[in-house]
């Protein structure tokens, strides 16, 4: 019970954030006349929490209140538009609207690539101005001598380095 209240609080605060990212509002004369819950006191439904605690429109016009009274009776007597109006009173977005995709991934990927590039520039600068001289063992001549020694001692002769060297012809195997 406590966890549900806490979860509801979390969803209220994140729901406010979700709300600010929303795009067009679903049209409907019933909704525009009712008072809309402000962003900070009513969270919106998500796929993981589809039934919010409070309805979307809390202050209803007389027309909407009449509709709510009619809702208390048999639902078969409601017309299609009335059902949709009741849904819009209760929920801010339909499932299709709630689950729409966004272009956020483009922003994310753009920022990721930007910072990777920036990091590349920083590392380049570091290599030029910070790194000390390379040790002598990393010159090509010394590296060749080390490789020759590895081949002489036949390191990894079964599947590894020395298995790729042709000892008769003194060259790498094709």
């Amino acid at each position: 019970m406590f966890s549900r209240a806490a979860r509801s609080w979390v969803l209220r605060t994140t729901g406010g954030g979700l709300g600010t990212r929303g795009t067009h509002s679903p049209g409907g004369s019933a909704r525009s006349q009712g008072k809309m819950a402000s962003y900070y006191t009513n969270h919106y439904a998500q796929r993981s929490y589809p039934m919010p605690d409070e309805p979307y429109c809390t202050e209803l016009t007389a027309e909407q209140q009449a509709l709510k009274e009619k809702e208390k009776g048999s639902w078969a007597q409601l017309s299609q538009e009335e059902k949709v109006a009741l849904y819009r009173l209760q929920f801010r977005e339909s499932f299709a609207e709630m689950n729409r995709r966004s272009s956020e991934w483009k922003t994310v990927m753009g920022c990721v690539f930007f910072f990777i590039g920036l990091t590349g520039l920083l590392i380049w600068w570091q290599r030029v101005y910070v790194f000390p001289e390379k040790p002598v063992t990393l010159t090509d001549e010394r590296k060749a001598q080390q490789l020759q020694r590895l081949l002489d001692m036949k390191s990894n002769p079964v599947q590894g380095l020395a298995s790729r060297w042709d000892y008769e012809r003194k060259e790498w195997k094709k």
Partner: protein
Amino acid sequence: MASGALAKPQMRGLLAKRLRFHIVGAFIVAVGVACAYKFGVAEQRKKAYADFYRNYDSMKDFEEMRRAGIFQSTK
């Protein structure tokens, strides 16, 4: 809502269906990966070692290394 236009969606057993799908899939993937490793890596390696040691002459190998001058204890 126009009744009769849509088929009734599945209401029950959704978790069981998902679990069955994923358990079967995970089993197949695990067994497949194991078989691929056994034949692609393990058997290959066993064959490579068997081929290498079938006609291996360790004294000849040692003489070659000695002539190359890598040992400290002998020339």
